[in-house]
């Protein structure tokens, strides 16, 4: 780093000039740029093939009626695919399910992560052990997790046994349309909250002790310190956590896929947008409409994130 310039030019006199590079002869500048792109080449190549081209291709597909089986053909249909969503009752159901899922999971998950982090940040005994235990669910693969939970959710499974033992009502967690989505919510909160807990924990340990000391001298108790110092100081992290969980929850797919065997049942109750996209794309081979749904999902996530940004930026402590 201290050697300065990455190119193989010998150090020049105007090295310290902030306008360095702009004044160089065009040939050299071009050569330098080329070298830069050359080194980035592999990354650009991979990103281009696997990210950029698919994105533009999906946008292109969303305006076409695509026929895949028996000779690929595209037929430009304008906004037809987007207008079709209006009358597609399953699209509306999936949107409603996903919105409900996001609205319930994100606040609970964030709150839980904050509480867990606060507990682990205090001076309790054996906190390292608790950190490991709390973090374990995150390490498990979501497919395995879902399968294990399906056993526990079984009408004769562990959870109903425990509920019956303490005289609480039991549920048909997997097959009752009113409950199925909530079963997935519970499982997902349990599995994802610890991941955000770690992020909160790291941020909490970054808050300077001197602030807390000053507050102690002023006579603040633990709760006051938590609400007046910890939470405001964590605001940028909370923004990150909320954005990441919103994106993650909007993309709910694997759990509901495994839960319902790919159908989104019982009675469409676990049908999410991404699952619907999968069904249209690979079961009905309607790539155009599936792409349109994907584009809409991307726009929804984009808008929600922008709103969050505005919301959190108002009182941002430091930029």
């Amino acid at each position, binding site marked *: 780093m201290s050697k300065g310039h990455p190119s193989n030019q010998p150090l020049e006199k105007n090295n310290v000039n902030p306008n360095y590079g702009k004044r160089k002869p065009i040939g050299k500048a071009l050569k330098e740029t080329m070298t830069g792109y050359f080194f980035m080449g592999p990354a650009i190549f991979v990103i281009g093939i696997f990210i950029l081209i698919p994105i533009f291709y999906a946008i292109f597909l969303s305006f076409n009626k695509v026929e895949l089986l028996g000779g690929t053909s595209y037929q430009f249909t304008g906004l037809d695919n987007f207008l*079709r969503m209006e009358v597609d009752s*399953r699209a509306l159901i999936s949107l409603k399910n996903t919105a409900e899922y996001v609205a319930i999971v994100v606040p609970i998950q964030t709150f839980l992560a904050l509480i867990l982090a606060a507990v682990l940040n205090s001076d309790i005994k054996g906190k390292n052990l608790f950190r490991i235990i709390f973090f374990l669910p995150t390490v498990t693969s979501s497919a395995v997790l879902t399968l294990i939970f399906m056993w526990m959710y*079984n009408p004769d499974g562990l959870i109903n046994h425990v509920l019956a033992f303490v005289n609480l009502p039991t549920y048909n967690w997997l*097959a*009752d*349309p009113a409950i199925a989505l909530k079963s997935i919510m519970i499982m997902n909160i349990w599995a994802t909250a610890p991941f955000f807990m770690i992020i909160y924990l790291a941020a909490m340990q970054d808050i300077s002790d001197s602030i807390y000391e000053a507050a102690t001298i002023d006579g603040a108790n633990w709760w006051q310190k938590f609400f007046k110092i910890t939470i405001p100081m964590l605001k940028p992290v909370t923004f990150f956590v909320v954005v990441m969980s919103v994106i993650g929850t909007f993309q709910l797919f694997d759990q509901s896929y495994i839960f319902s065997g790919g*159908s989104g049942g019982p*009675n469409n109750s676990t049908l999410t947008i991404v699952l619907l996209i999968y069904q249209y794309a*690979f079961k009905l081979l309607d790539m155009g409409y599936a792409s349109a749904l994907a584009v809409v999902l991307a726009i929804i996530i984009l808008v929600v994130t922008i709103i969050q940004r505005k919301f959190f930026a108002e009182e941002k402590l430091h930029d």
Partner: protein
Amino acid sequence: MNKKKWLSATVISSFLIGSILTGCSSGEESGSESSNGKTVVEMSGWGASPEEQELLEETLASFEEEHPDIDVEFQTISDQYMDVMKTRLIGGEAADVFYLDASEAPGLMSKGVLEPLDEYVTDDFDVDDFEQPLVDAFKQDGRTYGFPKDFSTLALFYNKKAFKEAGLSGPPKTMEELREYAKKLTVDEDGDGKPEQYGLGLAKELARQFYKLDAYGAKLVDKDGNAAFASNEAIEALQPVVDQYRKDKTSALPSDVGAGWGGEMFGQGEAAMVIEGNWAVPFLENNFADLEFGTAEVPMIKGEQATAAFPVAYVMNKESKKKDAAWELISYLTGKEGMKIWTSKGFALPTRKSVAEELGYADDEIRGALVEGASYAQPWQAGENLPTISNNFDNQFTSALLGEQPLEKALKKAEDTANQEISAGN
């Protein structure tokens, strides 16, 4: 020095790109011919029990013995068979020969991705020997796209011990009797309102209910392939199913008792009767050896005999480069000789009359009822839109079973939604 670096970089990168390209091309070429000059025919199918897999390998081995110049490579697609198969067909990577379920056949036949087999058929092959409805399931516009390798029908499986305890001498003959029997067979010993044994294990999917429609004069689809099951006749046909579940509380869904499907429920003794297919026989024999069960034909519906048939065919990929060898394989496997080996253990039933006669399944104690059904069974097939239709039916029928809405409304909603999706997709 700079020049040298550029040079070496160029050489290295072109070398890398070159190796990528050659990697691709060599991938495409491999597999067409094995090293010893044999033609390799690829075949895809879904997974099966180890015993069934063994039998298939035996059948293929005997084919290879007769055709020393052909090598068969079988690939199992273990999950989401049709999704994988369609994707491979689009990508031009599908196997030369593959399994196709009758319910999915119209969708593929109309897209022109299957090779019509009429030209290959010789007199020797004896098409007339097949059960006619089973071949018809793979025909479109007068062309045959596949020959059925085997099929299953539905039959009533009943637990002999439970019947004895309930004082019943034999299986029910009519659907009304079935409902009465189910009341006697429902056992709730501890009186908690949740029976330990239900009379009937219910399969709520359209594939397992559609055969009831015909006897009442109801239709599943109209002539354009649109859903048409929201009729009074269909309500009449399906209302008893809902009533038995909701009012009598003598039937249960597998998910109510934590089972995966009817066979499991039946084996575990959670249900005294189930209407299942051939596939349940080896499952029950392997997993519940102590279970004493019998089979009977599906009880008569409104005085008519009815059951469903699920035929599966071998079809040929239109893009195949080895069509002649592929036909050799299909004609052997669906021919008299190959079918005899393949169906010899009764995992699936033979579609050729001559083979069925020779193997004598009609007299088999367990499989007899399944074979009997073949003559009047309705194949599970209803045009290209069946996946959309059955998906919507399943959703709404579930909600009617749960009492969220009356059956009439549920069927209407299912039909409307299905037809809306069909018209939007075309």
